[in-house]
């Protein structure tokens, strides 16, 4: 399981109310009918953090398989959402991905 704190984007000392608020905000943005996988991930993370004992359990018992998650999140948050542009190579790679996927399907 991924680190649920990172999945929900909350600190380890977040309380019940904060975790619930964050979970509901994410579910509003990604309801199950739009992105079921993402919703399942949020739901599992919320289940793992929804009360004090579960949070302790997550911190004590789970080896965080995605140990990188938090570092990656930190690296991503360091960015400022601006109006930078992508390179032609990247855009071509995206289109090629789509073309190949269509051909494979």
């Amino acid at each position, binding site marked *: 399981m*991924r*680190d649920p704190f*990172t*999945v*929900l*984007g909350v600190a380890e000392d977040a309380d019940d109310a904060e975790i619930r608020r964050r979970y509901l*905000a*994410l579910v509003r*943005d*990604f309801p199950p009918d739009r992105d079921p*996988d*993402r919703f399942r*991930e*949020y739901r599992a993370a919320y289940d793992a953090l929804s009360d*004090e*004992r579960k949070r*302790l*359990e997550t911190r*004590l*018992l789970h*080896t*965080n398989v*995605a*140990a*990188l*998650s*938090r*570092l*990656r*999140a*930190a*690296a*991503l948050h*360091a*960015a*400022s*959402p*601006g*109006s*930078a*542009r*992508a*390179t*032609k190579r*990247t*855009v*071509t*790679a*995206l*289109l*090629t*991905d*789509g*073309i*190949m*996927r*269509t*051909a*494979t*399907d």
Partner: protein
Amino acid sequence: MKKSQRSGAPGPSTPVGVLAERAAEALRQQRFKEATELFKLAIRQDPRPEWTESLADAYSGRARAMAAKKMFKEAAMVLENTIAADGTVRDPRLYLTCLIRDAQQPKAAAYLLRSFGSGGTLPAIERTALEDLAAALLVAVPQLPEAPRAASSELSRWRELAVASREALSAWISGAPVEEMDRQLNRISLRSAFRPVRLLLKCLTGTPRDDDRTRHRLETIQPGSAFYPFRQAVEAAVFGERVLDAFGWEQLTPAQQAFVAETRGLPTTASQFLARSSEAAQGGPAVLFNYLTKQPDLPQAEVRSACLNLLPQIPDRLAQFEKSFGPLSDLERHRVKALAAEARNDWEAAEQSWLAAAEAIAGGGADRQVTLSQGVIYRHLARLAEMHPEIEGEGFLGDPVSFYLERCYAVDPEHIPTLLDLIGRYRKESRLKDWHRLVDEAIQRFPDDSHVLLQATESAVARKAYKRAAGFARRLLKIDAINPGVRRQMIELQVAHARKQMRSKRPDLAAKELSAAAEWERSDAPSALLRIARGLVGLQTGAKEQAEAWLREGVELAGGGVAGWFQAVLEAELMNATGGNAGWLRQELARARETSPTKQAVITIVAAAGRPEAGENKRVVAGLLLGMRPWLLQAAAFDWPDAEFQALAETLARFDAFDLLQEYARAARQRDPANPAWRFHDIVARTKGNADRLSMAETDDLFEMAEAAARREDFQAAKRIERFLDGNGSGSAGKSRADVALADTIDDDELAALFMAMMDEMPRGAADSLRGLVQELGREAALAQMVERFRASPVGPGMPESLLRQLCAVMVAKALDGSPSRPGRKTRRSQLFDA
């Protein structure tokens, strides 16, 4: 003889009709290469249109076969043989797939452009998808394909739109301002296949950003579109602050990650970290650990946390970790050791390390966090103990699951799930005093919790405190008005009372009891048991018409037919409702048996026979099952799933219907010979559930089955076999576990010494007398008698049945051949206990 003649190939003089016939036959049999050659020969002599069509079909089939073998280049070349006058091939979709998979995107783009321009002979159903693919190709290829000299207006339009899309994309890439982008985007028709380009760029440049509109625009690009990966990248880039958590990032493809990094203006260090850390992660935990410890620019607290989480997978890096980040706390060290032990399935070490971790936590004081953390560890140990017998708890005699749940309850008494688990454990272990004590404590502490109230009701019922149980049940129904469990329980309780009254020849009191039971029945969920019971009592108290109506209603609710009447007859027997009524019911049951059995009916009967009151009247149920033998036999041939068969087998064994069980097991083995479960039931049936009747071959089979079940982690099956081998087929898992635990306390050396002592101390004359016993009784019976003798000896009590049998088998073998090979210590011990 010429090669062509040898292989049956047509000669130059073969008539064209024969050629075409053989070609058609080859095509029908999907021998596409042969069909192609034959049609080519036939067409050379007589170019009939239908043969040309068939030749194209043969090419198409051959190309499909090649594509299936990933020979895309060759498949595309084969399809090019079918190019028609309008420039299209026989199977355009396959042709495009082959070109694209062979990295010939420009050729695919040119083909599509030509096809659309030539008036469109593409299948209508595929046209939309192909247009979407064409648009993506025409935007992605390095150079737009040349237009033919006499280009149609449709082709010119496609080219125009492709040029507009490519220019808009280039403008965005080179940083054109919003106004310029709007001008560029307006050239792309929203009705064309290039619409996704316009929408995606609009989402990226729209100011001020309107989230709803952006989302709506993006959602119009469906998952089947070639632009979908682009849409996902734009979504992540635009809504980054909300979606770019770990989940979002890891879901992105490398191209999408690059797009997000570029459009969000990530610093180079961050982009590099994101890219390289993924590569390092693929190299394994040690590579990732090394990579992370060499990142001084990253926040060190987060790096430490990530490395700490990697340590259980690479405990040998503990010293390196401490060198980089300072010493670990006691709790962290024990936690890492415990998780590392779990990872290598060393459960004894895991238990010790977790206990040390709990102690280390206790050193931090007695605040809420400390006690809750200890509770978490003890609960975890209880869970592990359920799965791994190596977790011992306080010692080999007690139940480690209860032990750890008790410790958890002691430090965290407010945690209701632990409380309920512990109550469940006490019940399972038949620790009645502890069960009732804990329930009393729980109801004091949580008087309004529905789960606790249900437990309190059940505890009161078990203590025969009916009024108390009714009080709890009413409280529970105030909280949870529907609760079918407690309603059913109260009805069953009062029906049980009514049964007693009937057996005491007091039908009037029984009727009163059953009227009271109706309080617990919901009008929309009538109880079959209550209806049947009221009917049976009513038949004796005089209201015959009403009684019969209740009875028939109950029979229908109980599943009708054989299942329903079986339950009515069973209830009549349990109530001792003898005389004419019982005869009438049996006639109804006999009439119902004229219909063929169904799985559902058999399972309903099994469930009815599994009720505790039925178990207490074994003779009655056994008699009923015997009467239904022919009917039940018909169901032996059904394809029973494992779980249902298991329930059925247990019921048949419980009521000594071993001949039926054997028929069921044999039929199942015929259907599915590979499933060892049927062999187990066959053995149980043959030995009539008595492990003392096992032959050596059967014993070996069962040990193998138990080991195989344990290997595939089917612990239920392993324990079932183990219980049977221990001669405790219907006993609790707890007892079996205690036996195993006892055996586990004897280490290898002690076990060998025990065997040696037994062998050496066997009196000289004993071998002779044992040989005589074998000659007189046969090997199996002699072995069984030996087991009985040992069981009564001082070493017998507490020694598992399987070990006793093994020991006796060795002694018999030694007596018979004089020089038995002693069981290999490790191997035998493993065979005996590991399962």
